[in-house]
């Protein structure tokens, strides 16, 4: 396949347009994608911060519940007397709180005395609430939620480490992720007589908090050291309880500084490990625990599948792609049109050039009216064509002139020996075919040398010219006249009917040429001798005929000039020669 300029130019233009629109589209997509991701990050971080505040608010609500419970006179009454009669109203209060708040596993009033003996205890067990009594009540003084809380001022909240509850007998809360909140029950003088302890169901709290988050949000919650407490994959939580710690900073390395307390928030794009097939965008915030606690900070995180974020970008990408494809198509179209527009006049011109080369016909040059480069090219070509044409015409004229000169006598304009030879051959072959006759006159000017001597060559030439004219005037059109050179002329008489006709013509000729010639005011009387040979009687070839006519002419000269003589007859002097 040949790649013409049109194809090359078209491909180039189309390539450039595809590249330009492709690159524009690509960068537009990239820019919008990163803008979308950036705004999604900001949004995600804000959502996470809001959620973290809600965690604090939720904890504050629990603290308010504790305040209500610890300030209830019944609590003080129970703790100040060994009498169990005061316990029932408090238990009823606990139950009403637990019914109102399903995240509470357990509410207890623990005495500061009796080694932290539980005085009133309500546990959740399935849908039921269980009042734990008598021997089932346990001593909890050795747990820091009791010993730690007893040291707190009135109204202060204690928050335990978040652990799996292994405390035997904890009913629904047993082996469940829980956090314990406690508050001292203080006497008027500020001494703590006991504590109210609430066991909170961690999963339930976060399920409630995250209830109005969109479905595809993933929630992460870790303690200050980074141990996962809540994770989309439950097996990753409470690793420390199973002997193999699972840390947020191991999964999202960007949270390392968060755990170390150097930064308060971190936003990451995770696409390795468990997120290699479904990358996520995740925001983490570090939230300090503002109450007395063994936990310093919490790390709260939200993750969103990156595909959600990029859904918009992908839609946009599709539009950009359509645009790019459209632009490419237009580009290809324009490229085709431009390529054709450029190459069509060039092609037309090349056709014109080809035609010109073939037959030198002056073809119409296209695009002459254009003013651009192609117009200039067309004009140049037109000039070249014209110039070639003129030169060719001149050449043709020269050639014709040369051809004429080759066959004619320059002085008289009569055919020369060569032309006459051809004519004679033609006459011979025609006569042989048709059986016709013809006669050959050999005419020689008598005493031509003396004319030259007397009047010079111009005089001789003038005589010869006039003789030629007279010969032409005297003979028929069909008869051939030629000057063989010097003062020798020949005449071919085609098809004379009789020998008398030949004689008659010979006499006419002699009479015509013998009339005086005026040269520079001098009348010249010129005599002629004519030798005649006849076909087929005197010869059958041109050479024979010529030689015999020549001989007859000399015979005529010998006979006294100015007469004619047949080869096979006598010379016919017509008149006396004046010279």
């Amino acid at each position, binding site marked *: 396949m040949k790649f013409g300029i049109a194809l090359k130019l078209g491909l180039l233009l189309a390539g450039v347009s595809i590249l330009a629109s492709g690159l524009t589209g690509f960068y537009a997509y990239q820019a919008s994608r990163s803008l979308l991701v950036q705004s999604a990050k900001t949004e995600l971080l804000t959502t996470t911060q809001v959620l973290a505040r809600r965690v604090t608010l939720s904890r504050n609500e629990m603290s308010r519940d504790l305040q209500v419970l610890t300030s209830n006179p019944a609590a003080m009454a129970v703790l100040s007397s060994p009498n169990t009669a005061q316990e029932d109203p408090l238990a009823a209060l606990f139950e009403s709180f637990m019914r109102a708040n399903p995240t509470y596993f357990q509410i207890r009033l623990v005495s500061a005395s009796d*080694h*932290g003996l*539980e005085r009133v205890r309500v546990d959740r067990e399935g849908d039921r609430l269980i009042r734990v009594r008598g*021997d*089932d009540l*346990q*001593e*909890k*003084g*050795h*747990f*820091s939620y009791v*010993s730690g809380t007893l040291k707190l001022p009135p109204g202060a909240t204690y928050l335990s480490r978040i652990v799996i509850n292994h*405390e*035997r*007998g904890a009913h629904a809360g047993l082996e469940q992720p829980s956090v314990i909140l406690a508050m001292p029950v203080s006497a008027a003088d500020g001494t703590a007589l006991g504590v109210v302890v609430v066991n909170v169901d961690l999963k339930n709290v976060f399920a409630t908090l995250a209830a109005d988050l969109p479905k595809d949000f993933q929630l992460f919650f870790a303690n200050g050291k980074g141990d996962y407490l809540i994770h989309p994959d439950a097996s990753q939580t409470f690793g420390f309880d*199973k*002997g*193999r710690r699972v840390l947020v900073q191991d999964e999202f390395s960007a949270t390392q500084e968060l755990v170390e307390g150097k930064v308060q928030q971190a936003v990451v794009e995770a696409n390795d490990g468990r997120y290699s097939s479904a990358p996520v965008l995740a925001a983490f915030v570090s939230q300090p625990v503002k109450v007395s606690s*063994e936990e310093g900070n919490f790390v709260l995180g939200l993750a969103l599948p990156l595909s959600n974020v990029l859904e918009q970008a992908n839609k946009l990408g599709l539009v950009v792609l359509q645009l790019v494809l459209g632009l490419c198509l237009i580009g290809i179209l324009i490229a085709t049109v431009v390529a054709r527009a450029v190459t069509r006049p060039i092609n037309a011109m090349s056709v014109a050039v080809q035609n010109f080369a073939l037959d030198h016909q002056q073809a119409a040059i296209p695009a002459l009216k254009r003013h651009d480069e192609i117009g200039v090219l067309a004009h140049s070509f037109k000039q070249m064509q014209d110039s070639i044409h003129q030169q060719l015409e001149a050449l043709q004229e020269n050639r014709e002139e040369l051809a004429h000169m080759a066959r004619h006598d320059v002085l008289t304009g009569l055919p020369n020996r060569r032309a006459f030879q051809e004519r004679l051959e033609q006459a011979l072959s025609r006569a042989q075919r048709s059986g016709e006759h013809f006669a050959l006159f050999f005419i020689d000017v008598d005493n031509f040398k003396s004319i030259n001597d007397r009047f010079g060559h111009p005089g001789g030439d003038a005589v010869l010219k006039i003789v030629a004219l007279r010969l032409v005037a005297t003979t028929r059109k069909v008869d051939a006249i030629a000057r063989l050179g010097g003062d020798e002329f020949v005449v071919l008489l085609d098809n004379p009917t009789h020998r008398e006709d030949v004689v008659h013509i010979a006499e006419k000729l002699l009479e015509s040429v013998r009339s005086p010639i005026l040269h520079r005011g001098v009348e010249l009387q010129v005599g002629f001798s004519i030798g005649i040979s006849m076909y087929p009687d005197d010869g059958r070839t041109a050479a024979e005929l010529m030689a015999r006519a020549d001989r007859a002419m000399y015979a005529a000269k010998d006979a006294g000039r100015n007469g004619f003589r047949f080869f096979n007859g006598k010379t016919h002097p017509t008149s006396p020669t004046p010279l």
Partner: protein
Amino acid sequence: MAICPNRCWKTLFGLKQALAWALALLLAQAALAQGTLRVLTWPGYADADLVKVFEAKTGSKVEVTTIDSDDVMWQKLNKNKANDFDVFAVNTAELQRYVQAGLVVPVDTSNIPNTATQLPRFRDLKGINGLVHGDKVYGIPYTYSEMGLIYDKQQIRSAPTSIRALWEPRYRGKVLLYNGGSHNFSLASLALGNASPHQIGPAQWPLVVDHLISLRRNAQGFYAQPEESVEMFKNGHTALMFANYGSQQVQLLRAAGIDVGYAVPQDGTLAWLDCWAVTRGAKNTKLAEAWINYLLEAAPGNALLTRQGLANTTSESPYLRAQDRLLWLEPVENADRRASLWERILAGDRANKVLAP
């Protein structure tokens, strides 16, 4: 080849030998490189950097799970007939439970050439109770410690001389204890003057339980892990602590900047010797033995000494004194019973409830 001189043959033979060696080495490496080694052990026995060296050496992957009590270890290994782990560290007394339950397989000491570097008394496996059963070795000694008393020098001027100090009312709420049933029952039994604290007779139970409850009432709290004990000691102004991990905790506390003393009471201090054992569920016993062999090398041995403050078996302990009277842990009369009773005691049950059926 017909005119190959003698020397040429020798070279060829040498080459063949070298090739054979290389092949054998490669095969051994390939055998070791198979899969993952699942290690169940105590805090400080398999630090991440040491694990990495072993992984690089063998081309294997090591998964370390740490436990902090004998009961949890028993639960983990018993749960799936020891199929979840390949190798674990256990004290000589506990090991016998596992041998009886058929959860461990004998160790081929010829695959552990580093045992040659151990002190003679640790190479004499028959001389150590519980390691050898019917001529088969089930454990390779690794580290050991007494379980003495750590005290805050600011609060306790002179070192306690008896384990009974843990019960002293003046330390109420300032005594830090270990959350492990078996040890605590032995401790209480010992404090009651029982000469063989690992065997509690049927009549003794109520007394021992009572004694444990009174110990609980004296307690500030119960720790499980060494690091956790340090935090609780620091934050709770502990006066006295039962050091289940012995010198390991002393080292950690001192590293945390706490001025502590360490006492080894002469009326009976319990002591443990931890050994490495291979489970019946081990997928690659060669790799498990390579792990044991590696831990007897100088670097891991040194890490035990300097990082953990624990003795190793290749050099004399800088922590133990010859005059210390130690009661090495022995199998207890009923580990399950001790565990379940301890759960109740820890939860705060009172005596009649603890002993209820």
